[in-house]
C-alpha cells in the first residue's frame, strides 16, 4: 500500500491492477490513487472519505466469439460489487450499457446493475444510441434532469463530477465529438468553482487521443482540458477501448476502464479494434471494474482496477 501521508504523492496517480471486476477510485487531496477494492478493506475504510466504482462497456446482448456469455461476466462483476466490505458511495457507468440499444437490453441492464442498490450515474456509449430514433430509448430512461444529449454534473462531498457525451453527431473521418453547445455548458458549469475543487470528468470515448486510426480520441477533447487546466486535481475517466490505459499530465490524471463484456486489442496490434478472442481460461483477466477512493488531506485520489479473475 502506498504511504498516504506523503504530500509528494499529491499529484501522483497510482493504479494497481488487482483481481476483481472494476476500478476502485479513491480521492486523496483530490488526486486519485489506487486502493485494493477487495484485497484490503481495512485500508480502504480507514483512508477514504468515500469511494465510488466505475463500470463500463457491459454490452448487454453481445454473444460473439470473444465472449458468448457477456451477461454472465457482468453478473460476476455485479456479484463483486455486492460483496464489497465497504459500500461505495455510488457507481458511474461510462457507456455501452447495451450492445444494440434494444429495449430488453436496457431493461436487463437496469435490473442487473441496480442489484447492489447503489446510485448509478450513466453516460451513453455509441452502442446505446443506435435505436431507430437515434438515442430516444437512452434519453427516455436516463435523460431526466440532463442537458442536450444527456450531459450533466453533480457534487459529492466537495468533489465535482461531470458526465459528458461524446458519441453523438460524429463527423465523417472524425473521432469522438462533444460540440459547441456542450462545451459552452461546461465552461458555464465550471465558472465560479474554486481552483481547489477536485474535478472528475467521465465520458465514454477517451477525451485524449490514444489511437486516432481506430477513432480512440475526441476531436474537441482538448477544449475540455483547456477549461480544466486551472484546477489542482482533475481525473478523467473513460471506457470504450476495453482495456486500461492511463497517463498523468500536470494535474490531470487520465484513466480508461476495462469492459465487463469482451477485450479489445492494444492500439495498433490487430487489423481492427474489434472484439479480441483470448483463450477461454484467460478471458476473466481481461474483464473488470475500477474503484476510486477520495480522501481529504494531503493524499492523492486512488484508482484501483480489478479483474474478474481476481479473488
Amino acid at each position: 500500500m502506498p504511504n498516504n501521508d506523503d504530500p509528494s504523492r499529491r499529484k501522483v496517480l497510482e493504479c494497481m491492477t488487482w483481481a476483481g471486476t472494476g476500478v476502485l477510485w479513491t480521492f486523496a487531496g483530490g488526486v486519485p490513487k489506487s486502493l485494493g477494492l477487495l484485497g484490503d478493506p481495512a485500508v480502504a475504510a480507514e483512508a477514504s472519505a468515500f469511494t465510488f466504482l466505475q463500470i463500463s462497456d457491459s454490452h448487454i446482448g453481445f454473444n460473439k466469439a470473444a465472449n458468448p456469455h457477456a451477461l454472465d461476466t457482468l453478473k460476476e462483476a455485479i456479484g463483486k460489487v455486492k460483496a464489497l466490505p465497504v459500500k461505495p458511495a455510488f457507481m458511474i457507468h461510462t457507456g455501452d450499457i447495451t450492445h444494440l440499444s434494444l429495449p430488453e437490453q436496457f431493461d436487463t441492464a437496469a435490473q442487473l446493475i441496480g442489484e447492489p442498490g447503489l446510485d448509478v450515474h450513466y453516460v451513453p456509449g455509441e452502442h446505446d444510441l443506435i435505436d431507430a430514433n437515434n438515442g430516444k430509448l437512452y434519453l427516455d430512461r436516463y435523460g431526466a434532469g440532463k442537458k442536450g444529449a444527456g450531459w450533466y454534473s453533480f457534487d459529492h462531498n466537495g468533489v465535482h463530477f461531470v458526465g459528458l457525451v461524446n458519441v453523438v453527431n460524429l463527423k465523417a473521418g472524425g473521432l469522438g465529438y462533444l460540440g459547441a453547445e456542450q462545451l459552452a455548458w461546461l465552461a458555464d458549469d465550471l465558472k465560479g468553482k474554486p481552483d481547489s475543487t477536485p474535478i472528475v470528468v467521465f465520458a465514454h470515448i477517451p477525451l485524449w487521443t490514444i489511437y486516432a486510426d481506430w477513432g480512440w480520441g475526441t476531436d474537441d477533447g482538448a477544449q475540455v482540458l483547456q477549461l480544466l487546466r486551472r484546477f489542482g486535481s482533475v481525473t478523467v475517466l473513460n471506457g470504450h477501448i476495453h482495456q486500461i490505459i492511463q497517463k498523468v499530465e500536470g494535474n490531470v490524471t487520465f484513466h480508461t476502464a476495462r469492459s465487463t463484456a469482451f477485450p479489445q486489442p492494444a492500439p495498433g496490434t490487430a487489423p481492427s479494434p474489434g472484439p479480441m478472442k483470448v483463450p477461454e481460461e484467460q478471458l476473466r483477466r481481461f474483464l473488470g471494474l475500477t474503484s476510486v477512493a477520495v480522501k481529504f488531506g494531503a493524499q492523492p485520489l486512488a484508482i484501483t482496477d480489478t479483474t474478474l479473475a481476481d479473488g
Partner: protein
Amino acid sequence: MRAKLIFWVFALLVSAGIGPALAADASVSISNFTFHPADLQIKAGSTVTFRNDDDIPHRVAAEDGSFSTKALDSDDKATITFARPGVFPYFCTIHPHMRGKVTVTP
C-alpha cells in the same frame, strides 16, 4: 468455363485494388472496420447491399445525408438504391473513421 475464368480474373483485379469495382447491382462487405470495396462504381438505378461481416454493429450513412441504413448487427444487410449520378462519400456513424465512396455514372 470461360465465363468463370473471366469472373475470377475480374475478382482478382478488384481485390488487388486495380481500379474501382464496376458493377450493376453491387455489394459492400464491412469487415475489420473497413468497407470492401471502399471505392465502388455503379450505374444509376442500381443498388448497393451493405453487409456487416464484423462482430460489432456498424451503421452506414452518406456524408451529405442522402441515405443511411439502420444499425447493422453481425450478418445484417441493408440495400440502398442509387437513382441519380454523382459521387456519394459515406461513413459509419458509429465508427466515423470508417469511410467509403460510391460513384454513380449515368
